């Protein structure tokens, strides 16, 4: 399809971008364009202006900041998945990014764009939610738990720009796994599970679990997290994971009905937890 007409502003600074957004209430930020352009091409979105933040180098890159890692909004999925700091400190983020689409999309699509887009089927929102990341914008800091408001809706204002994400380091003893269930390698998750697990003495000491595509926003599997505290690897973990779909409202669509997604959430959570605990 062919997009409708729009104006285009290539911002040379964050201030300029913010001004351009404030000047036109139907303006939209464009970063990698991998989610926005398909919407334009299908004429599902009609922004009057696109404010391109793609050439602001200060928004790109990963930094080790002691107790947390900062990921610039414009860092591409490909950069995230290969970054040595993330590999050492937050491997779950790299694991999630590695499952996004295909190499072409990963080279253009950005980390910040994935979060700002707030698609519950995206792989990174659940990861960041599980890790209690904090979104840093041009105006404020927003904890992940408050950032994802509804389907394709974040807590940001239209003229607010996400500059990066702070991810607290969890420290020693944690294992990670992102379990994505999809039909083809390029496809979106039918369900995905992001798990961070701290193990001690053959049991799960603590677990954080994010769910992809189990409702209008990414979700934490809170009941399972609670039940996993102290659970022995084996039947106790299995039982804890049977609660993974509690409190979720998964969609029914071409790729899966809600009951199937609930079932998958249980199986995949078990697999993700066991893999993160190194029990696979």
């Amino acid at each position, binding site marked *: 399809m062919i997009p*409708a*007409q729009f104006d285009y502003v290539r911002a040379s600074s964050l201030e300029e971008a913010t001004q351009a957004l404030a000047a036109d209430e139907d303006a939209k930020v464009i970063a990698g364009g991998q989610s926005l352009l398909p919407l334009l091409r299908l004429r599902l979105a009609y922004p009057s202006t696109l404010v391109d933040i793609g050439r602001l180098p200060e928004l790109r890159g990963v930094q080790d900041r002691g107790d947390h890692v900062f990921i610039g909004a414009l860092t591409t999925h490909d950069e995230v998945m290969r970054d040595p700091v993330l590999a050492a400190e937050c491997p779950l983020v790299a694991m999630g990014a590695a499952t996004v689409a*295909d190499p072409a999309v990963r080279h253009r699509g950005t980390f910040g764009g994935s979060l700002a887009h707030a698609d519950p089927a995206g792989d990174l929102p659940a990861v960041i939610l599980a890790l209690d990341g904090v979104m840093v914008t041009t105006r404020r800091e927003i904890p992940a738990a408050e950032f994802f408001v509804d389907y394709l809706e974040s807590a940001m204002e239209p003229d607010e720009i996400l500059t990066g994400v702070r991810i607290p380091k969890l420290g020693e003893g944690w294992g990670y796994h992102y379990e994505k269930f999809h*039909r*083809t390698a390029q496809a979106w998750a039918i369900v995905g599970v992001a798990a961070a697990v701290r193990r001690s003495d053959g049991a799960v000491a603590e677990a954080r679990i994010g769910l992809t595509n189990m409702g209008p926003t990414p979700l934490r599997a809170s009941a399972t997290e609670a039940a996993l505290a102290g659970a022995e690897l084996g039947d106790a973990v299995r039982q804890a994971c049977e609660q993974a779909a509690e409190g979720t409202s998964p969609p029914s669509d071409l790729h*899966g*009905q809600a009951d*199937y997604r609930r079932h998958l959430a249980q199986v995949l959570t078990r697999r993700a937890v066991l893999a993160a605990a190194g029990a696979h």
Partner: protein
Amino acid sequence: MTEELDAGMVAQRIAESDQVSEPSPNGEVGRRRRRKEDARLLTGRTQWTDNIQLPGMLYVQFLRSPMAHARITRVDVSAARELPGVVAAFSGQDLASEQGSLPCAWPVTEDIAIPEHPPMAVSEVRYVGEAVACVVATDRYRAADALEAIEVDYEPLPPVLDMNDALAEGAPKVHETGNKAYTWKFAQGDMEAALRDAPVRIDRTYIQQRLIPSAMEPRAVVATTDGETFTMWSATQIPHILRVMLALTTGIPEHKLRVIAPDVGGGFGSKLQVTAEEVVCLLLTKRLGKPVKWTESRSEGNLTVHHGRDQIQHITIAAESDGRIRGVRVELLVDMGAYLMLVTPGIPLLGAFMYNGIYKMDAYDFTCTGVFTTKMPTDAYRGAGRPEATYAIERAMDELAAELNMDPVEVRRRNWIKHEEFPYTTIAGLTYDSGNYEAATDKALALFGYDKLRAEQADRRDRRDPVQLGIGVSTYTEMCGLAPSRVLGSLSYGAGGWEHGSVRVLPTGKVEVVTGSSAHGQGHETAWSQLVADALGVPFEDVSVLHGDTAISHRGMDTYGSRSLVVGGMAVLSACEKVKEKARKIAAHTLECSPEDVEFSQGVFRVKGTGAQKTIQELALAAFAAHDLPEGMEPRLDADATLDPENFSFPHGTHLCAVEVDTETGHVKIRSYVAVDDVGRVVNPLIVEGQVHGGIAQGIAQALYEEAVYDAEGNLLTSTMADYLLPSAADLPDFVTDRTETPATSNPLGVKGVGEAGTIASTPAVVNAIVDALRPHGVHDIQMPCTPERIWRALRERAQA
């Protein structure tokens, strides 16, 4: 980590892939040649239809119906006409007097209902996506914007989506004549007796889901006129047929119309069509006197490229308790969609003679009913009728094996035609000229490690492993090389199945070949060069192949039905023979002997017993100079041949697939895949492997991924590639491909078609494997595509039962 590619490694890989696997001492045929076409294609020096730019070009966009079925009560394009950059806008009504009806060239029965099919709907729309108006503007963006200014009033009519509902008494009608297009029957042998006497009976219903052909290059059309003559570039498989059909439908005289298929990026049957967009673009250039271009978007393509498959298949096998088949009965309902397009009604008939497969039996009964629905019309898609047939019989053979507690390979062995029985006339009346099912199957079993996999399967079953192993068998044959003209005539097809080739040796000894078989990705230029190089004894590099332009290749029947090599290639070979005979006469004349005393070998004509000789290049120059030619000979070294095949070609093979089915999630992983195909003599193994790999991928895609889904209102839900799933290399296993070589006896080289074989064989192999994995759980079928959710539901239902 991705592996770093250094130049040396790349060079080595290229050298390896260029190795001659089957050296034939003198020649090109059999050589693993990399394709001539590819350097150009891979480096972007291509001419796709959408690349063509003409001065003053205008751009066309179509407004398409959002309703599956409705009366059009008003179309107002006036506001669109006022917009900047818009040159013209037309409704279907505006073009009604000249647009005619899109052709159906295959009226399969005398009483078939062939409804009017205006390229743009005039009074009624019958599927979502049907064109109702068009805009012509100075660029495609303005044209697309202007579509939003067109007003159309629809009076909704009930959609007709399900074939069984469509045939029910009192169903809403797609066309005034009703929802049945035709019923076509074939019967041979005493089916009643077979059903009555046979102790075993397998009755099954299979659904061939609707598929959307997804060629890499979208459809595109450019049309232009100089006021008197017309030229159309189209991403089509059939420039020749298209030209005739456009002349017949638009009234533009055939000799004033040139059709060019430039580089065409795949078709799989979807570009074997005369489309609404082609006709309208021609009319627009005629009206406006300017060149026009239309290129579909991918989602527009999903809606409006003709779809494939879509059948409900009832199959019955009557068998003895030792597994021998007595008879097969088939009843098909085939979704035509809203209209009959170029060969829509004939597609299931290409399968009609194939449900008996490679097996012997006493009786065969086939009935097919074509049904109208308010969906995009269906038509040819890779394999066209034969994948459907192979699927039904190969699935049912596995059911027979399960019923008798026999190994699925054994049940096939008991029924297939033995190699010493060829040529064999089947119950469906075809004469299979050659084949060796034993050899192909034995080779496949060995490569697959069949016994070892069966042992692993038993072990997993015993352990109640959540991941179960399944093994699927598919032994297929197919009729291709479309087709003997007399057979097509007997099936009421509107044309013949011959092919044209011409060969001209230029004054410098280089060779130009013109073929009527218009390639769109198959590699004709390479394969034909190999054929001609051997036939005339000239270097491979000295041959160039021209095709795809009716002004250059004036006669042809184009490319589909795995016909190119067995019909088109053989026509070229036949022209080479004529050239050689002519050259022999010139040689004899120059060397002062009789033609019978001249021997030909590797491009040189020698007088027997003397050292006197002339090369073909010298003779080409002599023919050009024409100073001293035999009395009465025309001064040219070239020849034409139009070849009508005497029979179809019958490739066959055995495909084996092992899958791991995760019974917790329903996920299917293809663990290994072995294909042993017998496509007769092979001209270029690399091209053959490419065709087999692509074909298998496409067949696996039907088994596991692809499905066009319409909702209850008749909206296509799978209009983008996010929803219509196609596998990529990352989703497919390494295929083990190998061959047996039983030459065809119906052509001088012994070649058979290979373009569709992989697609035909692979779908049942995969589904048989999945069902094999699940049989101990009480599951006997999974509807295609076998999605994880369908598998999970089937398992859950059985567990609850």
